[in-house]
């Protein structure tokens, strides 16, 4: 990591103010022109520092709005470029808040009807991406054929469909798909091969309606059911002792959870062993998906103990790799690690608490795959060191997030974006490369466990994409790992729009009272006083009552504070966007130094 986000922010704010030659009317005329232009090229106005600083001085509110609108245009551009298939594009469109989605179309010179967005894409990018967008927003002719009879029964035809916004279409089709998906997830086990095939086909028909998590959960269920069915068929008719027979019976018991059935099957496999025709690989694969046993499950005390052991061990491991910067960073910043549930993730960084949370479930899975107990991880030095070695790239990933959030001085988790993930994956990959070059154990792990350890698989896949080119690496991370994450542009636009809505409602109140405009600046003591009055805890429902009782100067102070906050976020975005643009150059240099210069030699 060459440059922290904070440095970029400081650089932007330190631009000489004299550049902002105050020619108010001319600045506002240019603002009007720039606002009316919704072409992709219009976003370049944000790169004109002299103009943006002049606008910031002339009318800070308009400067923030221009940043919001052009961030929306840039987000649209990133949607066109980064999402190669309609399903991932639809997922990212779906992940946007409803207000944002409407704004997206509004800024594209269109109303709320999705086809207008498609027109914008066609006008600026041609027919192919427009086709993808049309499918993503459920254009009539792109609907799953299996949904046709459902819509016909609901008396929904093309004309009515075409008039509906994306969310309405998506929700209508979700109603159709709901029983299909619920049927897959609730069908009693074990499944017959015919059921596996049928549910597989149903899942494919409804794939465009699933969130990333649903998609993964559905596929995992089908895959695990398939594994159970295959395992049961394999052991059918094998000579087994009474205990193994009882376990086989449990593996067939539909009253047990699928994971418990898989555990029973795993016990049969373990009992049968090589003489029963079961390979160690088959047993290890089941260990990944079966229920954990008591010795493989952390108690709260064991979780706390492990969490206490991790920081020093990770920093020591990172120091050995030669990966720069991280150990220095933690000389001045606290490293707090927790071992907790982090659904759907190997680990997460939590900006408000400054904590890295490692997934307890994933660590337990690692323990099972090693054929060990939790106690072994905590007590045996060799096992603990192996775990630290293999999981340390994940730690570097989360530590990068900590540096991103703390460095940019914006510790709001809602500002998390795909740009942060791309950088974190990049830093993780740099670290893995340095570590495997220095430590033979890591190189061996990546080579020998390439097909059995999901950590090794992930590190290898990222390394392979980077070896091919940084371009492929970015594509893989954006569309393969984090396709539902919003772009940096979307994150900023949503935040600026949220401030704008609040400002509008408070200004309406001031107007109704016949009060003057809010001051340009506000005394922090006044804001502290307002916050102490319980303002921060207000909800949209209780805000109205509070507003009626609030003094006019308090409302004016809030408007001023919101404007300052909005401008701070506009500045944050400007700095982050420039920092993000520098990342590909940094990746290119790393690739040339570590990959192109020494292409892997062919094994003899």
């Amino acid at each position, binding site marked *: 990591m060459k440059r922290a986000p904070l440095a970029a922010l400081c650089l932007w704010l330190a631009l000489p103010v004299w550049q902002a030659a105050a020619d108010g009317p001319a600045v506002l005329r240019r603002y009007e022109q720039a606002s009316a232009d919704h072409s992709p090229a219009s976003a370049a106005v944000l790169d004109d520092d002299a103009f943006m600083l002049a606008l910031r001085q002339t009318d800070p509110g308009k400067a923030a709005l221009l940043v919001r609108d052009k961030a929306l245009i840039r987000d649209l551009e990133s949607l066109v470029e980064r999402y190669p298939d309609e399903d991932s594009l639809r997922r990212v469109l779906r992940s946007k808040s409803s207000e944002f989605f409407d704004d997206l179309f509004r800024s594209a010179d269109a109303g709320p009807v999705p086809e207008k967005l498609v027109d914008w894409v066609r006008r600026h990018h041609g027919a192919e991406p427009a086709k993808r967008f049309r499918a993503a927003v459920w254009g009539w002719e792109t609907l799953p054929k299996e949904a046709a009879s459902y819509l016909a029964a609901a008396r929904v035809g093309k004309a009515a469909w075409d008039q509906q916004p994306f969310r309405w279409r998506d929700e209508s089709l979700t109603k159709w798909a709901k029983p299909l998906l619920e049927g897959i997830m609730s069908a009693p086990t074990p499944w017959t091969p015919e059921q596996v095939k049928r549910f597989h086909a149903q899942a494919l028909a409804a794939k465009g309606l699933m969130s990333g998590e649903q998609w993964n959960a559905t596929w995992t269920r089908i895959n695990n059911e398939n594994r159970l069915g295959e395992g049961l068929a394999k052991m059918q008719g094998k000579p087994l002792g009474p205990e193994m027979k009882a376990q086989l019976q449990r593996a067939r018991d539909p009253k047990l959870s699928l994971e418990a059935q898989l555990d029973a099957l795993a016990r049969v496999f373990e009992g049968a062993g090589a003489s029963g025709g079961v390979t160690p690989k088959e047993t290890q694969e089941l260990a990944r998906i079966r229920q954990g046993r008591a010795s493989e499950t952390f108690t709260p005390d064991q979780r706390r103990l492990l969490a206490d052991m991790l920081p020093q061990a990770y920093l020591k491991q990172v120091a050995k790799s030669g990966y720069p910067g991280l150990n220095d960073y933690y000389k001045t910043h606290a490293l707090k690690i927790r071992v907790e549930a982090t659904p759907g993730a190997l680990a997460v960084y939590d900006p408000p608490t400054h904590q890295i949370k490692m997934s307890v479930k994933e660590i337990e899975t690692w323990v099972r795959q090693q054929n060990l107990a939790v106690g072994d991880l905590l007590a045996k030095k060799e096992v603990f060191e192996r775990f630290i070695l293999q999981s340390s790239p994940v730690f570097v990933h989360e530590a990068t997030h900590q540096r991103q959030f703390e460095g940019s001085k914006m510790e709001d988790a809602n500002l998390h974006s795909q740009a942060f993930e791309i950088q974190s994956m990049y830093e993780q990959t740099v670290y893995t490369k340095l570590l495997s070059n220095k430590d033979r154990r890591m190189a061996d792990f990546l080579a020998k466990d*390439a097909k059995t350890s999901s950590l090794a698989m992930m590190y290898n896949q990222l390394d*392979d994409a980077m070896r091919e080119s940084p371009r492929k690496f970015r594509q893989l991370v954006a569309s393969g790992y984090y396709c539902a994450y919003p772009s940096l542009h979307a994150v900023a636009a949503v935040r600026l729009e949220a401030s704008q809505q609040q400002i509008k409602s408070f200004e309406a109140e001031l107007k109704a009272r016949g009060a003057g405009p809010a001051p340009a600046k506000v005394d922090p003591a006044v804001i502290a006083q307002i916050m102490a009055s319980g303002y921060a805890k207000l909800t949209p429902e209780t805000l109205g009552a509070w507003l009626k009782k609030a003094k006019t100067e308090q409302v004016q102070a809030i408007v001023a504070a919101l404007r300052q906050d909005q401008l701070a976020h506009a500045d944050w975005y400007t700095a982050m966007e420039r920092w993000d643009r520098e990342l590909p150059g940094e990746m290119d240099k790393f690739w040339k130094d570590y990959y192109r210069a020494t292409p892997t030699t062919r094994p003899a």
Partner: protein
Amino acid sequence: MTAAFLAMALAALLQAGEGKMPAKGYARLELPEAGAKCEVPAGWERSGGGESDERERIFGAVLTAPRKQPGPAASLSVEYYAPDNAYFPSAALYLAHQGAAPGAGKPAPAKVRGRKARRWTRATTEVFPPNMVTARAVEVKTETFLLEAATGFYVLSLRAPSAEFPERRKAFQRLLDTFDGRR
């Protein structure tokens, strides 16, 4: 007379190679920035292009097949590496790097519509679902053709889960048989 006129017009178009209808089930892919065209399966989703093409000076498209099952999808790609591209100044360097990747077979001489090329295959694994310890490895096979151009070079490839590869190979063959690179 009208019919005769149409026949003549059609013949002229065919001669020019511009009006030839794509084979059934295929669509024409035109890539002006790459100076290339070819036929690709109709209904495969196209992506690529945009700002990064211009920044990296690699022009082309990726065609993604409808998924047969969750996990990696088969894809065809046509790329033109301009001489000033960000990564490989020459086809030889590309070959030394990509043709020697782990899991790659030995690059061998080949031809694409009479043009000299180098061909190699590569076996890799992809992870699904990504970012989870419960992920499984999916075997993936890639077949690549590298064609030198007067300036720069072309890379044509098919990437597909190994189990799906044989049936996708037909679409790749059609791409190769119709590939017209003007650089």
